[in-house]
């Protein structure tokens, strides 16, 4: 065998070794798994180069050199595979290559120095070669498919990891959003609470101003109501003084008219009672006015509803008359005799009645202004006992309330009056006073253009 053939074989072996080394490195992902061994694999050409030089220097011609080099490479590869045997395809490759390397080693051992196998082993070695090659190829394919499977699994795992990470990121984002929203909601709740407090304050102020407004309406009525009793107090007092002096004159006479004296005395005594009565009347009007302007004390007392209704009907009427002199109406009262007293907050119920009467007068006034012939404006109030309750009906034959409006009249701030004339709180306050304050009910019944009737039912005894 000439030297060039030896070179050729060595070169061929070196190229195949480099190819296999490169392939194996890629197949097993050696740069990652075994960086050091991988670097070593890239120096597979070095022994080949050394042998090259040896051949050139020592003029070696043995064909065994190339095969020896190849075996060296194979052993090295086996060692690499052994090092990564934890990797299943590597194990399979190890399994695939082992017989092949053994065969190669055996071949090298049995070969004569000229590179030829002795004839005796020919048949055996041929069979064995085929067997190891098929073995090798089969297991290489198996390793490949194993690797593919692993790759797929890895991909799936990676996808899962990715999805997991994504979910984690989303979770973090969600948590951030939740925190953000919670903060926003908390702020909003705070703001709403503030607004609510403000509204409550405003409402309280409006309630107070509504009270003051109705107080203003009342003042005129009260002035009138108070002048009448005062007129009697002054004049009965004066006339009593006159009568007393007349009595003295009579007593001083020699012929006393005893019948006249007795008449004078009885008149004086009667007058004193009248003075007392009208003084009381004035006092109760002033008291009523004070109670009206004062915030409710919430004190329940037995109340004579007939008396209360009568008093406030007059007050409402005079109040309106004071503002509008051309207005007049017929007041009809129908009070149940022996009506039981009701446990109630007098000033509060008075406000309710005043409100209903004022509305009634307003309604008949509106209808009167239309100039219907023969229209007699009438506001009436009646009381009745119904079992454990007392009913008060306030009825007017005014404009009536349309169905659509009727549903809203107890809402706060709802008013049909021109702006500035009504706060829209009168009926809503009345509703609160009757339902919340007295556990009663207030309902309305009306026919448009005919009448309106409010019905208040109050329990005679408050529960609890």
């Amino acid at each position, binding site marked *: 065998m000439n030297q060039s053939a030896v070179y050729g074989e060595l070169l061929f072996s070196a190229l195949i070794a480099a190819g296999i080394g490169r392939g194996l490195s890629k197949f097993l992902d050696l740069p990652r798994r075994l960086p050091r061994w991988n670097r070593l694999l890239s120096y597979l050409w070095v022994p080949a180069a050394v042998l090259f030089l040896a051949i050139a220097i020592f003029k070696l011609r043995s064909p065994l050199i190339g095969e020896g080099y190849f075996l060296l490479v194979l052993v090295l590869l086996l060692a690499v595979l052994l090092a990564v045997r934890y990797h299943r395809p590597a194990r399979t490759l190890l399994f695939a290559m082992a017989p092949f390397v053994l065969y190669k080693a055996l071949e090298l051992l049995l070969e004569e120095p000229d590179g030829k196998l002795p004839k005796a082993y020919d048949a055996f070695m041929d069979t064995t070669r085929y067997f190891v090659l098929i073995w090798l190829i089969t297991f290489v394919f198996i390793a490949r498919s194993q690797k593919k499977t692993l790759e797929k699994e890895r991909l799936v795992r990676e996808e899962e990891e990715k999805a997991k990470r994504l979910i984690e990121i989303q979770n973090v984002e969600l948590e951030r959003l939740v925190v953000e929203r919670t903060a926003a909601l908390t702020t909003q709740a705070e703001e709403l609470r503030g607004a609510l407090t403000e509204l409550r304050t405003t409402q309280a102020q409006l309630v107070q101003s509504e009270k003051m407004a109705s107080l203003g309406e009342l003042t005129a009525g009260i002035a009138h109501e108070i002048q009448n009793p005062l007129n*009697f107090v002054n004049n*009965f007092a004066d006339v009593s003084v006159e009568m007393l002096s007349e009595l003295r004159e009579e007593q001083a006479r020699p012929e006393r008219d005893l019948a006249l004296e007795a008449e004078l005395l009885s008149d004086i005594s009667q007058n004193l009672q009248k003075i007392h009565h009208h003084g009381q009347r004035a006092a109760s009007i002033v008291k009523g006015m004070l109670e009206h302007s004062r915030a409710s004390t919430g004190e329940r007392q037995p109340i004579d509803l007939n008396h209360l209704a009568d008093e406030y009907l007059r007050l409402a009427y*005079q109040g309106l008359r004071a503002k509008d002199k051309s207005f*007049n109406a017929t007041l009809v009262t129908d009070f149940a005799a022996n009506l039981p007293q009701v446990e109630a907050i007098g000033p509060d119920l008075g406000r309710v009645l005043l409100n209903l009467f004022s509305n009634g007068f307003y309604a008949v006034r509106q209808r009167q202004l239309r100039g219907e012939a023969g229209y007699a404006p009438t506001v009436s109030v009646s009381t009745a006992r119904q079992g454990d309750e007392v009913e008060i009906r306030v009825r007017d034959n005014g404009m009536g309330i349309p169905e659509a409006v009727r549903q809203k009249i107890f809402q706060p701030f709802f008013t049909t009056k021109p702006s500035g004339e009504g706060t829209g709180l009168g009926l809503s306050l009345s509703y609160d006073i009757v339902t919340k304050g007295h556990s009663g009910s207030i309902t309305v019944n009306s026919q448009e253009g005919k009448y309106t009737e409010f019905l208040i039912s109050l329990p005679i005894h408050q529960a609890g």
Partner: protein
Amino acid sequence: MQILVVDDETDVRDLFQQRFRREIRNGELQFNFAFSGEEALGFLRAHHSEVLIILSDINMPGMSGLELLGYVKEEFEMPPTTMMMITAYGDDESYRQAMALGANDFLVKPLDFSVLKSKLSQLNS
């Protein structure tokens, strides 16, 4: 001299009867009382031409004193009826309105009876 007093306060009757007890005893003045404008009109229709002086409150439920004044001036022209208004409101508006409707006088509550008496005696003479 017949006087009709119109007021929704019933104690007015006692007051006038006591205040004018001497005049009533003398037969100088005769008083009749009506407790609403409607009642007053009814009385006037029934006792036409007897009443010379009407003393009326203005603020009354139902027919007001001013309305009554209007009816009286319209219905009972002859003999001329003297109509005096008595009110708890001494405001200019009521006064102007009463005068425009033909009221002869305008008195304010609390009523000063000495003033009223002198006015009545002036009318009487």
